[in-house]
């Protein structure tokens, strides 16, 4: 069941929701983009529906609530180690189909890789429900159809599609029906829009032979890639983190342990004590990242890590195309067979 709402009615729904939920949604930051006079669409908390960016694809992924770039885990006082507190009010995160499909990948690592569930992830995960922003069309660099994450059949409490200045919402979660029923009488059977074809299409090889893993095709990226790591930070499925301890300069006895987002492209990712380092070349790092997304993760868990959102291509300052690399790996793998 669903609703067709005016913008005013939608504003009233969001206003009501924000009494009970923190709303974490893509917002447009004017002039904050990579070039002069270019906006950035990033995630932030909002109370006002007008602030939510429903048209443009966000530059950063919705994972930032679950895995913040920097999160304090433990506080240290003289003889005590204390877990950090967390705001326990429930959260609604707005995301597209790629974002909601990425959740399964984040859960896979933080909850189901190894015997221990990550308690700091789980306590955030338990607070979150997802709102699906439908995609009326494909965006630059998207290849979600090839990665089979263009659609989500469940995993969201309601959807939003901005169609001709009206909001169409499908509301599969009964608990959320009341917010809509209060402000709208126009009950209709609506389904979230999704992309059926992208301009960018990729074929992913079933398996990548060892000769392709060590192929010279990666050398190109040793010179092209500047190992800035932006592709990792915008990726909805990158989960790596580094532990970081600090002590306060005004009281050295007190400090904290944080985890901060890590990038397998950036120096220091593999450093071991005594100066050892693995994958010094950027081409090797590119291979490590790409093959995780389209081969290694699948070997371990049975499905691809990459959801095809194309954000890595959107953000790359060297215009390196991830989908292009997948194509090269496919071609090289085919030639081996």
């Amino acid at each position, binding site marked *: 069941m669903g609703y067709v709402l005016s913008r005013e009615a939608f504003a009233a729904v969001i206003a009501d929701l924000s009494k009970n939920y923190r709303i974490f949604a893509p917002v447009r930051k004017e002039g904050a983009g990579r070039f002069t006079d270019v906006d950035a669409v990033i995630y932030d908390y909002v109370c006002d529906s007008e602030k939510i960016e429903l048209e443009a694809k966000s530059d950063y992924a919705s994972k930032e609530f679950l895995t913040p770039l920097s999160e304090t*885990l*433990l506080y*240290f006082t003289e003889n005590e*180690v204390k*877990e950090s507190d967390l705001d326990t009010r429930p959260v609604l995160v707005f995301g597209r189909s790629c974002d909601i499909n990425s959740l399964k990948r984040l859960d896979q*690592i*933080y909850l189901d*890789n*190894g015997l*221990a569930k*990550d*308690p*700091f*992830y789980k*306590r955030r995960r338990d607070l979150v429900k997802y709102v699906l922003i439908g995609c009326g069309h494909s965006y630059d660099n998207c290849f979600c159809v090839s990665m089979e994450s263009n659609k989500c059949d469940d995993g969201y409490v309601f959807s939003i599609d901005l169609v001709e200045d009206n909001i169409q919402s499908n509301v599969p979660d009964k608990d959320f029906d009341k917010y809509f029923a209060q402000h709208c009488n126009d009950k209709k059977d609506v389904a979230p829009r999704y992309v059926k074809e992208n301009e960018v299409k990729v074929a992913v090889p079933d398996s990548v032979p*060892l000769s392709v*893993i*060590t192929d010279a095709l990666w050398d190109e990226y040793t010179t092209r890639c500047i190992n800035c790591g932006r592709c990792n930070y915008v990726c909805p499925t990158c*989960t*790596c*983190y*580094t*532990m*970081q*301890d*600090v*002590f306060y300069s005004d009281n*050295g006895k007190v*400090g904290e*342990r944080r*985890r901060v987002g*890590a990038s*397998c492209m950036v120096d220091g*990712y*593999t*450093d*071991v*004590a*005594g100066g*050892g380092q*693995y*994958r010094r070349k950027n081409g*090797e790092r590119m291979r*490590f990242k790409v*093959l*995780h997304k389209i081969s*290694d*993760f699948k*070997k*371990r868990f049975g499905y691809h890590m990459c959801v095809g959102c194309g954000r890595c291509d959107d953000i790359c300052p060297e215009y390196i195309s991830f989908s292009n690399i997948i194509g090269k790996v496919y071609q090289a793998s085919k030639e081996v067979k």
Partner: protein
Amino acid sequence: MTNNNPYLPFASDILDVIKHTEKEYTFRMAFKGDVKPGQFFEVSIPKYGEAPISVSGIGDGYIDLTIRKVGRVTNEVFERYKGQSLLLRGPYGNGFDVDLYRNGEVVVVAGGTGVSPVRGVIQALSQMPDATDKYVIAGFKSPADMLFKDDLKEWEKKLKLTLTVDGAPEGYTGNIGLVTKFIEGLPLKNPAEAKAVVVGPPPMMKFTIIELKKKGFKDSNITVSHERKMCCGLGKCGHCRVNDTYICLDGPVFNYEFAKNFVD
């Protein structure tokens, strides 16, 4: 959340500190629980960080951690003394299956601090009723860098120990040369069935395995232990991953038949 939070370290008393070299000490830490040689603990020093350290010895109510002073965390560890405590998490990883080496010829090749994770294996070998077909090649940078000197003397009596150093001051009478130099001359009866354990810095492991294979060893009879950066030990932080393998969960000890496919 406090219950069972795997990131919360526990305090462990420093029972003893054994000095091997200026930069390498063994910290004997109070610990009760199951541990295997080759497993590791995260030494967790508030405000400084965490470092994965292999278990170099296991005894009744204690574990040994042999630590080299090389970084922010380990520098701080060296500020702690007997009677104080350290915070630890673990044990993590799979560890060695010592029973694999009970029968038949066995060669352990270890370099530098690589001796720590296999010390438990060598001890088990030396305590076997007949250890005449168990060989150990231990290499260190120089005579001053030798670890576990007392152990080495004990092991020498029980099994076939080759002790070597990469270089030494004039007048040194022991072996000089890399561990790889001593593999060819091992008087093995049946290298095709003999088992090997190789632990050390990556280049040392690479060239040792080349020598072992020249000698006739099968890949599937070689066991290796890998070292990687690890921030969690729980399969979450991602730093130790190689291909689809998490060194912290699936390793650090691997059969070489499997580990030879690792591409870093």
